[in-house]
C-alpha cells in the first residue's frame, strides 16, 4: 500500500493561516495530506505541540509564522524560531530525521508559496517514509 | 534432584539470589550465586558531557555514591589532564572519610552485628538491629544513629546533596570550607574516633570474648584462600582516596603494584551465562574457573583484603588495632572471611583518625579549589577504594569532552567469584545428609555473602519496652496541627 504521509501544520492566524486560506480561495492545487492547526501566534507553539503531533502519528510537522519583523505580537516569531532550532537538535539526537520538522515564514498574501511549501514538504516526507515513533511507543518490552 | 532457592538475598544492598542443588543423598552438589540486575551505565553514559559523569555515576549506588563520585572526579581530572590543587584534594578526602565513617558504622551495627552479636542461627525476628540493641543496650542504638547522622551532615556540608554529592568539577571542587565550619568538623571527628574505639570494644567483648564466635571465624565453612587487593600509599599503608593498587598472593607476598593507567594489564573480566554480574580476575594468571588457592586467577577486594595487601595503617590507633588483629588471628595474611567484620572496624577507626587529621590541616580552609583547564586530552582513569573494594572508572571523550566510551569495574564486582565460592562452601559445609534445612541454616549461608558487602540495614519493627513518646504533626510553616502522646 502506498505510503500517504500525515502532516500537521501549525499556522499563525495573522499571517500564515491567512496565506493558507488564500491558497484555498484561489483554488490552487496542492497535496491534501496536511491537517492545519491555527494558533494566534507562532510564538504560541511550544515544543510539546510538535512532540505530541509526532506521537499521535504525524510523519512530518510544519511550522509557519509571520516574516521576521512582521509579527503581530512583535517578538513571537523569534521565540518560535529559537524553539524550532533547539527542537530540531533534540529530535535529531533521538533518531527522528531533522527534515521531518520544518519552519517557513508565510505572509498573508503568500498563498502560492504556501501551496508550493506543502507540495515540496509532502515529497520530502514521502521520501523519508513513515515516522516510526508510534510503533516504538507501543513496543515497551 | 531437589533445589533450594533463596530469593531475594536480604540485608544487603542490591539484588541477588542463591540456587542450591542437592543430590540424592541430600548433600549439596553445587550452589550458585546469581545477580539478576543490570542497568548499563557503561553504555548510557556515552554522549553525556564528561563533567556530568561524577553526578550520574553516583547513581550506581545510593549507599556508596561518594565512592563513584570520587573515582569519577579523578577520572574526569585525568580526561582534562590536570591535578586538583592540594586544598581540593584534601577536601575530597575529608568528605570521603566522613563517607566511610557513615557506611562502616551502619554496616557493622545493622548488618554484621545481628549475625554475630545476636547469633548466627537466631530466629529471623531477632536478626536485626533491635536484637542487637537487646544485647548491647538502647543507648548504643541512639548513638549509632547520631554518629551516622553527623557523618551525613559533614557530607552535605562539603558536597551539597547529602546522598548524591555534587562536589566534584573538572580540576577540583565547587565549594570550600570556612574556619567556623572546619572547627565544627574537628569536634565531630573527635567524636568519630571515640565512637570507633567504642565499636572495637564492643566487638572485642561480645564477639572475640565468645569462644563460639571465635571458633566460627577461624573454623567455620567460610574461609577462602585468595589473593588480596587494595590501594596503598607510597609507604604501603592503606589509603582509600589515592595511591597504587597492590595485590598480594595467598601467602602475603606482593604480586603486583600498579598505578591506575596500567589497570588493563592486570585486571580482566569473565562472563557467565547465568549471572548479569561479570567476574574480574587477575589477567596475568588467567581465568581458571571458580577455584581458590595460590593458582587461582581470582582475588578479593574487601576491608580484610586491604589490610592484607598493605604493610599497616597510616594512623596510630588504627595501626595498633591492625597489629592486634593479626596477632590474634595467627599472622598475615588472614583468610577467614568473617574477619572482614573486624577489619572493617579497624578501617572505621582509621577513617575517623584521618578525618581529624585532614580537618586540622591548615590547607583545608584554603581558597584555591580548582586547577586551570586547557585542551582536553580525552582519556582518564580514576581509582579509589570503595567500602566494598577497589573501584575503577575509565572514560574516553572527544575533544569537546563528550563521552565516547566508559569502562567501570565496581568494588563488589571484584568479589563476585569469591562470593560465589564462599556461598557454595558455606552451603556444602552446613547442609549435610540428615540435616534439617532450617531458616537459620539458610541465613548462615547468606552470612557468607554479607561479610563482603558493607551495606545498609536498619532498625525496624517495634522497639522493646514501652517508650514514652510525643508525636507532633506540623504544617509547612511549622505550626502545630496535632499532638499525640503515649505514656
Amino acid at each position, binding site marked *: 500500500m502506498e505510503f500517504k504521509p500525515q502532516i500537521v501544520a501549525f499556522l499563525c492566524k495573522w499571517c500564515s493561516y491567512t496565506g493558507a486560506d488564500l491558497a484555498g480561495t484561489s483554488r490552487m492545487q496542492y497535496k491534501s495530506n496536511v491537517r492545519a492547526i491555527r494558533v494566534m501566534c507562532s510564538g504560541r507553539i*511550544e515544543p510539546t505541540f510538535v512532540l505530541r503531533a509526532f506521537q499521535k502519528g504525524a510523519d512530518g510537522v510544519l511550522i509557519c509564522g509571520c516574516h521576521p519583523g512582521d509579527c503581530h505580537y512583535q517578538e513571537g516569531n523569534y521565540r518560535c524560531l529559537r524553539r524550532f532550532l533547539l527542537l530540531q537538535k533534540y529530535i535529531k539526537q533521538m533518531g527522528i530525521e531533522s527534515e521531518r520538522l520544518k519552519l517557513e515564514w508565510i505572509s498573508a498574501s503568500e498563498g502560492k508559496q504556501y501551496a508550493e511549501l506543502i507540495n515540496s514538504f509532502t515529497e520530502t516526507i514521502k521520501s523519508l517514509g513513515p515516522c516510526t515513533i508510534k510503533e516504538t511507543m507501543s513496543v515497551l518490552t | 534432584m531437589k533445589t533450594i532457592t533463596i*530469593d531475594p538475598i536480604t540485608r544487603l544492598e542490591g539484588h541477588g539470589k542463591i540456587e542450591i542443588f542437592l543430590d540424592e543423598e541430600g548433600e549439596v552438589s553445587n550452589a550458585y550465586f546469581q545477580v539478576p540486575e543490570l542497568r*548499563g551505565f557503561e553504555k548510557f553514559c556515552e554522549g553525556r558531557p564528561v563533567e556530568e559523569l561524577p553526578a550520574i555515576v553516583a547513581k550506581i549506588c545510593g549507599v556508596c555514591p561518594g565512592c563513584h563520585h570520587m573515582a569519577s572526579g579523578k577520572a574526569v581530572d585525568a580526561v582534562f589532564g590536570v591535578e586538583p590543587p592540594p586544598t581540593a584534594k584534601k577536601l575530597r578526602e575529608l568528605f570521603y572519610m566522613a563517607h566511610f565513617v557513615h557506611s562502616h558504622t551502619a554496616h557493622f551495627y545493622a548488618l554484621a552485628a545481628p549475625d554475630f552479636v545476636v547469633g548466627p542461627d537466631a530466629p529471623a525476628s531477632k*536478626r536485626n538491629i533491635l536484637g542487637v540493641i537487646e544485647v548491647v543496650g538502647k543507648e548504643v542504638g541512639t548513638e549509632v544513629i547520631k554518629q551516622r*547522622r553527623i557523618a551525613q551532615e559533614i557530607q552535605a556540608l562539603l558536597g551539597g546533596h547529602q546522598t548524591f554529592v555534587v562536589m566534584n568539577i573538572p580540576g577540583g571542587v565547587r565549594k570550600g570550607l570556612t574556619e567556623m565550619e572546619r572547627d565544627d568538623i574537628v569536634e565531630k571527628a573527635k567524636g568519630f574516633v571515640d565512637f570507633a574505639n567504642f565499636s572495637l570494644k564492643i566487638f572485642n567483648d561480645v564477639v572475640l570474648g565468645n569462644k563460639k564466635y571465635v571458633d566460627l571465624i577461624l573454623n567455620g565453612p567460610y574461609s577462602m584462600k585468595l589473593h588480596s587487593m587494595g590501594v596503598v600509599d607510597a609507604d604501603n599503608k592503606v589509603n582509600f582516596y589515592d595511591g597504587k593498587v597492590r595485590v598480594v598472593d595467598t601467602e602475603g607476598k606482593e604480586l603486583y603494584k600498579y598505578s591506575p593507567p596500567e589497570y588493563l594489564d592486570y585486571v580482566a573480566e569473565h562472563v557467565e551465562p*547465568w549471572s548479569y554480574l561479570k567476574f574480574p580476575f587477575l589477567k596475568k594468571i588467567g581465568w581458571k574457573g571458580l577455584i581458590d588457592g595460590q593458582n587461582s586467577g581470582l582475588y578479593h577486594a574487601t576491608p580484610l583484603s586491604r589490610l592484607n595487601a598493605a604493610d599497616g595503617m597510616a594512623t596510630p590507633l588504627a595501626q595498633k588495632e591492625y597489629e592486634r588483629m593479626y596477632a590474634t588471628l595467627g599472622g598475615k595474611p588472614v583468610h577467614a572471611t568473617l574477619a572482614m567484620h573486624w577489619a572493617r572496624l579497624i578501617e572505621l577507626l582509621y577513617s575517623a583518625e584521618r578525618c581529624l587529621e585532614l580537618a586540622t590541616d591548615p590547607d583545608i580552609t584554603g581558597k584555591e579549589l580548582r586547577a586551570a583547564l586547557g585542551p582536553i586530552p580525552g582519556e582518564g582513569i580514576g581509582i579509589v577504594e570503595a567500602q566494598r573494594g577497589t573501584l575503577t572508572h575509565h572514560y574516553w571523550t572527544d575533544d569537546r569532552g563528550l563521552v565516547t566510551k566508559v569502562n567501570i569495574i565496581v568494588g563488589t564486582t571484584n568479589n563476585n567469584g569469591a562470593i560465589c565460592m564462599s556461598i557454595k562452601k558455606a552451603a556444602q559445609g552446613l547442609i549435610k545428609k540428615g540435616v534439617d534445612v532450617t531458616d537459620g541454616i539458610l541465613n548462615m549461608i547468606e552470612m557468607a555473602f554479607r561479610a563482603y558487602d558493607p551495606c545498609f540495614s536498619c532498625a525496624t519493627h517495634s522497639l522493646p519496652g514501652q517508650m514514652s513518646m510525643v508525636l507532633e504533626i506540623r504544617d509547612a510553616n511549622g505550626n502545630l496541627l496535632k499532638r499525640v502522646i503515649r505514656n
Partner: protein
Amino acid sequence: MEGSKPKLKLAVYWASACGGCCVSVLDVHEKLFDVVAAADLVFWPIALDIKYKDVEEMPDGHIDVTLFNGAVRNSENEHMAKLLRKKSKILVAYGSCAHLGGIPGLANFSTKEDLLRRVFEETESVINPEKTRPVPEYKVPEGTLNIPVFYNDVRSLAQTVDVDYFLPGCPPQTERLLEVFMAIVSGAELPPKGSVVGADTKAQCDECIRKKTENKKIKKFYRPWEVEDDGVTCFLEQGVLCMGPATRAGCGYRCIKGNAPCRGCYGPAAGVTDPGAKMMSTIANIVDEKEPEEIKKVLEDVVDPAGFFYRFSLPVSIIRRNMS
C-alpha cells in the same frame, strides 16, 4: 494509647534501583522511633529477611502502603510491580526512577542489543571470545538456572501498573517523606489519586536562594567548568544550564547548596505533560539572538540536549526512546 490504633503496614521495595531511596528512608535518623511506633515494616529486602514467597502468601491488600522505588527494567521488576500492586492498598511511586524512569532510563538511548554487547563483549577489560551473554534460562549439570529477562525499554512504575501517588526526588528529601508519612498516619484526608505528594507545586527557582533578575539574556552558554561561579548569581544568568525553571521544588535546592546547577530530579512542576519540552522552551526563550545562524551558534553549546532536558525522565517523555 498503645494498641488503640492498628499500626500501618509499610513495605519498601526496590526494582531497577541503586539503594538511594532506601537510604532516604533510613535518613529519618532519630525520628526512626516515631516511624516504628506508627508502622510495621512488612517487606524491605535491604533490611528484613522477608522473601518473595512470603509476599506471595500475603492476602491481597494486606499492605497499607508500599513505597516502590526503582524503574521497571526487567521481568522481575515487572512481576514485583504487579504483585505489590495486588498486595497493597496504596502504591506510591517513590523516587525519580519509579516516578519518571530515572537515571536507568537513560538506557532508552540504546537498544537492548547495543547495551548487552557493550557491557559483555566490548568493554576494554572483558575477555569473552565466545561472546557469552547472560540468558534467562541456562542448563548446568545440576539443573536449570534462571535470571530475569532484560527488556528493551525502561519504564516508569505508572507505565506498568496503576499508581496511587508519586513522591519525587533522587532520592526524595527525607523531610518530605516524613511529612507524607505523618499525614497518612494521622488519618488526614489524602489528596486525589494520582497526585504528586511530598513536593511543592511551583518550580525550583521559587525555592532557590541564588540572586536572580528578570533580565535573562544569553549570548553564550558555558559548560560549568568554563566559568568562575560566583556562588551567588543564578546559574542560567551566568550562562550555565540549570533545570530549575522546569523542575518541581521540594528538595531544599540541595545541589545548588553544593554550588552545582539543578539537573531536574524532582520532575516537572504541576500540570506539565513532557518534562523536557518545557525546559526547551525556557532555554530557547533566553537566547538573545534573532538571526538563524547566530541562534544556531549559541545552541551549539547545548551539547547534549536530550541528556540534559531528560536526564531523569526519558522513559516518560513523549518520544521516550531513541529510534535509530
